């Protein structure tokens, strides 16, 4: 029982990063932009928040956890929004190919994260492994009282605030996309930018806004990993392929943020299942780690085979929109 509880807890905490990434990517893709730079943006967001907190804690003798939290949150969102801005300028204004720009952005972002993660202590004057315990404690703070309830408290109330925020954000995004005028406009652009343009919607502005705010949301996934999961430190390539899993999750969720919530916890569970399955050898553990990717491939094949209309990606996904080329 307690083993199952730990498994569920870990599955959820593995899933949060992926959920942030997937929510950001859904908003982006709804505008017709397939941003393959999300993995890089998540690295950029994570390291920027960590660096901001690090320099803040270094500059004052008695760092305040709450101020550290605000600074790192703000810097993370700015840095990842900057990643989204690079992507937007190149694909929307300069009309470059989206896949190519996305991959270049991922190369850049992962390098950015690993470079500063690996060099920051050297650049700051050789303090060894960087660690921002004070700020991280604010991210790791549990809900007082509720988290003390046995079992339910552990399962539902034992996480930092970003976990709850990720779920609330996904629900809000679902509401925004389905129930508001702006959400409708955004979806219209993703389906047919030409028609949306003719209807008087400013296509470029929507695409910019969606891509940049999507990137900022995805960056929070990197911050969550650095602050709550790792406890305020950096591990080169530690974030791994979670960014790509976030892009895969968008497909699994059929472009619906609410589906992404349970999907992310499923992915989180598959990610760590090998630790909990009894009787695995070292070799079969490695095979078991394939599961999230194999599941994604199977979902991809099944959804393309069934070919249901409402389960398809936005119709103009991956294509740049040039008004004069219609």
């Amino acid at each position, binding site marked *: 029982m307690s083993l199952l509880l730990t498994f569920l807890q870990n599955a959820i905490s593995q899933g949060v990063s992926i959920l942030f990434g997937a929510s950001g990517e859904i908003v982006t893709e709804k505008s017709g932009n*397939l941003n*393959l730079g999300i993995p890089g943006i998540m690295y950029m967001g994570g390291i920027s928040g960590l660096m901001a907190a690090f320099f803040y804690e270094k500059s004052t003798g008695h760092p305040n956890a709450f101020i550290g939290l605000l600074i790192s949150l703000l810097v993370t969102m700015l840095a990842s929004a900057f990643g989204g801005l*690079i992507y937007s*300028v*190149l694909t929307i*204004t*300069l*009309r*470059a*190919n989206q*896949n*190519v*720009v996305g*991959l*270049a*952005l*991922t*190369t*850049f*972002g*992962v*390098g*950015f994260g*690993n*470079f*500063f*993660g*690996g*060099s920051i202590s*050297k*650049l700051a004057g050789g303090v060894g492994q960087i660690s921002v315990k004070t700020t991280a404690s604010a991210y790791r703070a549990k809900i007082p009282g509720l988290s003390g309830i046995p079992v339910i408290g552990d399962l539902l109330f034992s996480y930092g605030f970003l976990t709850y925020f990720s779920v609330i954000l996904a629900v809000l995004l679902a509401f925004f996309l389905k129930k508001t005028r702006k959400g409708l406009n955004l979806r219209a652009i993703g389906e047919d930018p030409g028609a949306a*343009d*003719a209807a008087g919607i400013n296509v470029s502005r929507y695409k910019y806004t969606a891509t940049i705010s999507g990137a900022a949301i995805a960056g929070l996934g990197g911050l969550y990993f650095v602050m709550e999961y790792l406890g305020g430190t950096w591990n*080169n390539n530690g974030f791994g*392929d979670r960014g*790509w899993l976030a*892009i*895969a999750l968008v*497909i699994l969720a059929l472009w619906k943020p609410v589906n992404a919530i349970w999907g992310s916890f499923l992915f989180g569970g598959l990610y760590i299942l090998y630790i909990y399955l009894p009787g695995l050898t*070292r*070799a079969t553990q*490695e*095979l078991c*780690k*394939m599961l999230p*990717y*194999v599941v*994604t*491939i199977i979902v*991809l*094949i099944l959804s*393309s*085979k069934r*070919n249901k209309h409402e389960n398809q*990606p936005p119709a103009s996904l991956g294509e740049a929109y040039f*008004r*004069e*080329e219609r």
Partner: protein
Amino acid sequence: MSKEAANKEVFLRMTKRDSISKRKAWAIRGIAVVLSLILCALIIVALTNDNPFQVYLGIIDGAVGRKRRFWVTVRETMVLLIIAVGLTPAFKMRFWNIGAEGQILMGGTATAAMMIYFGNAMPNWLLLLVIFIVSSLAGMLWGLLPAVFKAYYNTNETLFTLMLNYVAMQIVTFCIVFWENPAGSNTVGIINGATRKGWFRNIFGQQYVLNVIIVLIMTLAVYLYMKHSKQGYEIAVVGESQNTAKYAGINVKKVIIRTMMISGGICGLAGSIIVSGASHTISTSTAGGRGFTAIIVAWMSKFNPVAMLLVSAFLVFMQQGSIQIASQYGLNENASDIITGILLFFLIGCEFFINYKVEFRKSKKEVQ
């Protein structure tokens, strides 16, 4: 066009160029390269407090300063080139194969397996031949899977090939469990370090000449295949329009599957060149992101083999140089990825100014 006049905020006018002279296009690219180099220099200077000329001398020294470094730069250029060449047929067909990483890893794993299990069973030339065939087959299999599903169910190939990269990585870690040397290190170590079985032999006294020969032959072969064969033409037609291809009696499914087998096969061969011809070991970082970089190389070069060689050489030159600078200052070698990223942003962005003309709109109203 009617909306254009109503849009008051537009002060820049962009029009598509009908044509652009070769000289002008290269001048634009040249400006982009210079701008990117200046930005890179600013960043390096900000991090190291060294003067920019010193930094660029350091990059040149790091890339080609010693004979050994020069040949490493050549070797890495060749690897990037052959992956870009391998991806070309798939991209010509508008098939987004972003699974080169996985195809390379499968080819590399097959190569390592041959070196380990058949190292002493046959003469070296035969072993190398077997390695080339088996690694190509492994890469081919990894290209075949998404192609079949694309052809029959129209499954999204971008994400399918991407996911296969990670499946391939797990296959590598699975194999490392059995091959690890020394035990407990979780790495394979140098394979056949004493006997050098399955290694590329020196030609003209140089270690990497065979790499260059193989890559250049493959580049030429793919160029001829794409330009002067019926199959190459079929690929181009399918890429332009699948409906046209069907109308012309081309079996689209067959073309998709065949082309991805070729593409995957060459990427698998690239894996054998990395393992047999350079690293002599296998790990999850054997491909090291080059499968992604090569996509950008192939796309930016518009599949022109000479351009691909130039772009690969430029990127590798800057990477090797910045790795040297980073280690000189005790910084992390991932600096090269940042540099690569910046160069790519500029090179990608400048294509716009080749395709479009930008004019400042004065206060005149008689546009159109």
